């Protein structure tokens, strides 16, 4: 009703200046008019401007007097025109509050004599208070003194009246179209889509959360690294063997048995199965000899090499244990160059903190060929790391028992504005390669790094436990970009 009235009125009029007046003129409820205006405005049928007015409203007491007359008049009328009425008699005739207020006001107005006996002083009075109240109720204005006296008697209170002034909107029509939130199959079937009016869509917000699958960021990075290795001609090594013997993990790499890495502080040794069942005996003998007394041009470490130490099982501390097995198998064949890589789990007996875990992923690459040089190592590292977006590299001399020369790899971090260590590399020692049976001019260059560190840098994660393990933040897994390593 209100909607038709408004749209209809605007068809022939420029403006509805005051919604309140419009409502009373058309006999409409104020609330209905306001709601319709809001809705029409939302769909831009109309433009509505806020307007407000200060006005006076009757209090409950004021409303009562507007209907029943003021107390002083009620009291005056209860006094007989002639003669007297006893005061207690008069009190009985009137409501207690009317009596009380009426006595005081009628007295003040000098309408009656107040004593034990009450009598009129004048014969005729006007109920000015009632008149004023009725006029306010009708929205008429009255003068300031009257307002003040009514206010003082708490018969009226001030209120702000809010309403609208209304004009045609950009989508004005004399009749509203059907409103829909979406196009449905029924709309198409009925063909009523042409009349559909769509609720405005909020293009300034994101859509609802999609229900989707997600891959782990660490494994996304792993996948990209794997692609990079494959593009560089590297073959993946089988690394699905976490349990390893000390022999393959350390001894075959020419890592002496007293080396600190072989402490229980660093390595997980096993209670079951505690020792390895078999090792290639001929090769073990050669490894023992190179540790104890050298050979192949080396002095060796000159200590008593113990088979029991080599037999001890452990959880591999590096994937180089697998590389060693692969190289040993390779050396058994007529020589052919190889490039190997792996990305898999390794274990360290470390206390867990923001940057350390007892298990993490090692990335390893190695090249085995005749006549390789440090220049080749530096070249392959530049190729590899520049694919990871790290093209500014430099190398620091370092120590590692099984590589000589050894180089720590540093990359310039543009964000941190400094050189950060990103990995380790080197040439495997002849004491490691020659007992395997490789020809003397065959060299192996290799490098390794953790998968976690570059991933944390890439995804801006500063606590490794947020990334990997059961304390992971699931929303982190659901909200992360694709890994673009090797693309840019």
């Amino acid at each position, binding site marked *: 009703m209100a909607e038709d009235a408004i749209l209809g009125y605007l068809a022939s009029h420029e403006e509805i200046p005051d919604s309140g007046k419009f409502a009373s003129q058309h006999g409409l409820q104020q609330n209905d008019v306001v709601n319709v205006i809001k809705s029409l405005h939302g769909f831009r049928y109309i433009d509505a401007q806020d307007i407000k007015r200060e006005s006076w409203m009757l209090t409950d007491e004021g409303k009562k007097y507007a209907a029943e007359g003021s107390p002083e008049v009620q009291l005056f009328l209860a006094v007989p025109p002639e003669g007297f009425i006893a005061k207690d008699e008069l009190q009985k005739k009137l409501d207690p509050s009317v009596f009380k207020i009426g006595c005081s006001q009628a007295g003040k107005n000098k309408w009656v004599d107040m004593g034990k006996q009450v009598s009129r002083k004048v014969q005729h009075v006007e109920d000015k208070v009632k008149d004023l109240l009725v006029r306010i109720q009708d929205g008429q204005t009255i003068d300031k003194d009257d307002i003040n006296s009514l206010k003082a008697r708490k018969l009226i209170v001030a209120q702000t009246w809010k309403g609208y002034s209304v004009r045609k909107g950009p989508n004005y029509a004399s009749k509203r179209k059907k409103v829909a939130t*979406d*196009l*449905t*199959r029924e709309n*198409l079937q009925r063909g009523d889509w042409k009349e559909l009016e*769509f609720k*405005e*869509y909020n*293009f*300034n917000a*994101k*859509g*609802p*959360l*999609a229900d*989707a*699958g*997600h891959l782990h960021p660490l494994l996304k990075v792993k996948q990209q690294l794997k*692609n990079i290795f494959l*593009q*560089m*001609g590297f073959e993946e090594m089988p690394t699905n063997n976490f349990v390893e013997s000390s022999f393959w993990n350390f001894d075959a790499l020419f890592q002496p048995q007293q080396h*600190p890495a072989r402490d229980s502080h660093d390595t997980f040794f096993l209670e079951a199965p505690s020792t390895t069942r078999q090792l290639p005996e001929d090769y073990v003998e050669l490894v023992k000899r190179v540790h104890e007394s*050298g050979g192949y*041009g*080396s*002095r060796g*470490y*000159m*200590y008593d090499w113990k088979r029991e130490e080599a037999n001890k099982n452990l959880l591999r501390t590096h994937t180089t244990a697998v590389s060693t097995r692969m190289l040993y198998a390779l050396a058994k064949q007529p020589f052919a160059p190889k*490039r190997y890589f792996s990305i898999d789990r390794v274990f360290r007996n470390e206390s867990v903190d923001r940057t350390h875990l007892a298990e993490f992923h090692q990335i390893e690459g190695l*090249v085995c060929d005749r*006549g390789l*040089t*440090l*220049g*080749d190592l*530096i*070249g392959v590292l*530049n*190729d590899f790391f520049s694919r990871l977006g790290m093209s500014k590299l*430099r190398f*620091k*001399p*370092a*120590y590692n*028992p099984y590589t*000589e020369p050894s180089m720590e790899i540093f990359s310039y971090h543009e964000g941190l504005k400094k050189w950060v260590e990103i990995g380790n590399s080197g*040439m495997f*020692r*002849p004491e490691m390669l020659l007992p395997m049976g490789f020809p003397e001019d065959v*060299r192996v260059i290799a490098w390794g790094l953790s998968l976690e560190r570059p991933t944390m840098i890439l995804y801006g994660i500063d606590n490794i436990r947020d990334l990997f393990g059961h304390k992971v933040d699931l929303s982190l897994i659901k*909200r*992360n*970009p*694709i*890994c*673009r390593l*090797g*693309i840019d």
Partner: protein
Amino acid sequence: MPTVSVARDRLFAALGRSYTQEEFEELCFNFGIELDDVTTEKAIILKERHLEDDNSSLDDEVIYKIEVPANRYDLLCLEGLAQALCIFNGHEKIPRYTVANISKESMLKMQVKKETSLIRPFVVCAVLRGIAFDEARYNSFIDLQDKLHQNICRKRTLVAIGTHDLDTLQGPFTYEALPPPEINFVPLKQVKHFRADELMEFYKSDLKLKKFLHIIEKSKVFPVIYDRNRTVLSLPPIINGAHSAITLKTKNVFIECTATDLTKAKIVLNTMVTTFSAYCERKFEVEPVEVISFDGNSSVYPDLSEYNMEVPLSYITGSIGVPLEVDEVTSLLNRMQVHAEQAGLGGNNINVSVPPTRSDILHPCDVMEDVAIAYGYNNIPKRKLSSLKPLPLNQLSDLIRYEIAMNGFAEVLTWILCSKKENFEMLNRKDDKTTAVVIGNPRSSDFEVVRTSLMPGMLKTVGHNKDHPKPIKIFEVGDVVLLDEKKDVGASNRRLLAALYCGANSGFELIHSLVDKIMEVMGTPFVPVGNSAGYYIELSDEPEFLSGRQAKIIYKGRRIGIFGIVHPEVLNNFDIPDPCTFLELDIENFL
């Protein structure tokens, strides 16, 4: 990696110049050590005591904490570090260490008793004569023993060092192993006598020493060293006797290293004597001690002989990958504390003499590494191995394809060729002849143009799958071709991504979510309209979509795509009875 703390100013004095921190870090980097931390004695003490207040009586000398390679025992103190760096800088020559030439008769003797083989069989000894200690040198002498104990000595299990004021003792000495109750002496820092078994009990509450007790605790006999007057020098590897304790005034130092590993004992002894012989009256000279085994075998220590190797030049240059002449290699090696000279006139081999300080050199590969370090790792020209580079566009397409599939969309693969009508009219689009490549000799109307959008193929797919259960969620990543003035042939490909939802409802919000997802996986933030740091969407007005339910996608200020409810007329053109929302965007913008 072990860390050595040295006073910066003393180090710089020894290096003959001062450095800025950056300069010193650069020197360390090139040599293969690392400045790990810069602190002060004061800061260290305050930290240890958990204090914060400033106690100005403490020393605020700057301390450098330097990380050294685990096999360079010669670098475990200031003297060794300074010497190595001076030689590396070419300011000093490599010292020649000598054993004093004294007769066997006048040599101090150490007699080894058979029982020691039950617990700690080896001992090696030497004497530093006429040493001049000051407080700094003395502290360094003590610190070096600590560092050696922690590292090569494997917490004293392999080797333990005892140093004594020789003038308080009288040789010959004996190295024995006795039942603990028979050993009785005043240990270092104590005033009363202890029996060895009582002493072990006593040290159980000593924070520093208790961790060494296990090495001999369970043995029936304890190793012990006496002089000729039965003065106890030490109860290795636990504690020395108080009697022979060295002081700042000590002039002659007797050093004994007891061990379970003879090779390491020799290295430890050599490290101690070579380092501190620099402070002896006769610089770099060490007085030998004869160690006589119970079986009569005699050895004289220290063994300061140099280890000789003949290394072919070709091995060195061939491993490093830099052509170097013999004299270049020898001078590089001399900077690494390795004596080297050409083997024979005009020879291509290099005679290398490894001094006793460089126990880490085992093989010519270690020599080769030193050449490479002195040459500078970062000066070696790189050689690139063969490798392939993938096409970034295709790699990116694949990664996006996986993400969209993970969002529950099935991949379709539609034809590049279509009819003019499908590409334009049926999409409510006008052909202004500026976009599509037109085929001159089509065999049928199906192959008139090369698509300029993935939309017709996707809609045809839905139209032909009317019976498929709803909703249908499909996507395609593929190329379209556009006329292009800049290309030699006048046309170029663009890689587009399209996704479509079809169901009882339009799925507009669902496709909106997919847009957000694609932007998220591309690492692009959602930004307010007008901001070019990310993406936002804006109401669009294209004829193929329903008015009010379509938006263009703005990425870094560029319009890269659009999505919207497909216009019912278009749906009708493709004979689709259900509402659809379609998304198309150009993924080349993400490269």
